[in-house]
């Protein structure tokens, strides 16, 4: 079993980078690996609870909940990036953690592989 750390900086709506990263996480977990998933910048939108699924837009809350339930997936949002966008602790979906940026670097420290997916 390996540990994959994925950092994503793209928004939930307006890009499919988060969709790709979540699909990749799912595939890694199915292969028996662990995934640390970091969202920063506009990607903190993913941590917002109460997302309504429309067919025209990416909707990943249900998938994130499924991955969290495996116990092999940790999702963490950059607290400052989220707060700057008005996503407060009480707005965060269940199971999604919030930390400062050093959490991401610490996860990279012990990761077998790091995949960093930039934003705009």
């Amino acid at each position: 079993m390996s540990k994959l750390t994925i950092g994503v900086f793209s928004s939930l709506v307006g890009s499919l980078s988060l969709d790709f990263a979540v699909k990749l996480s799912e595939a890694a977990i199915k292969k028996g690996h662990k995934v640390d998933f970091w969202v920063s910048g506009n990607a903190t939108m993913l941590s917002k609870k109460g997302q309504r699924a429309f067919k025209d837009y990416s909707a990943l809350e249900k998938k994130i909940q499924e991955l969290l339930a495996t116990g092999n997936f940790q999702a963490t949002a950059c607290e400052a990036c989220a707060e700057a966008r008005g996503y407060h602790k009480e707005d965060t979906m269940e199971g999604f953690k919030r930390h400062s940026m050093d959490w991401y670097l610490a996860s990279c420290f012990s990761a077998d592989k790091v995949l960093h997916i930039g934003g705009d």
Partner: protein
Amino acid sequence: MATTKIAFIVKSLPYKTEASRLALTHAIASQTVEIYLEDGDMVEPVLAFIGDGVLNCLRNQKAMNMYGVTSLEQHLKNSLLLDLKVLICKEDVQKFGIAEDSLIMDAEDIGGETRANVVAFSEIMKEMEAANHLMFF
């Protein structure tokens, strides 16, 4: 005891997106990462500006005056104050016709002792090859 080297490669324009700001703030976060690690373990960052990214290193930025936000100059100086290794690609600086005295090369005004280095891209490549992980912003 182990050290993981992370290269933060900045190739984005300043202010157009949040990318270069996030590169700087994530690199600076390496200074507090120990709280999550075992004693003696550390993350060693190297911050390199290439392509359009060298424009982040121009002096006399007025972001606070114009937009009321911290400038990338301030973040870069904080990086130097914290002794981060900062590299600026020489070829790209020359490509833009930027004189070295127009670049943020030190943080002496806030008490920093470490200087940025304008180096050939081949030197930046060596840093990338030596890094455990690469992050492009």
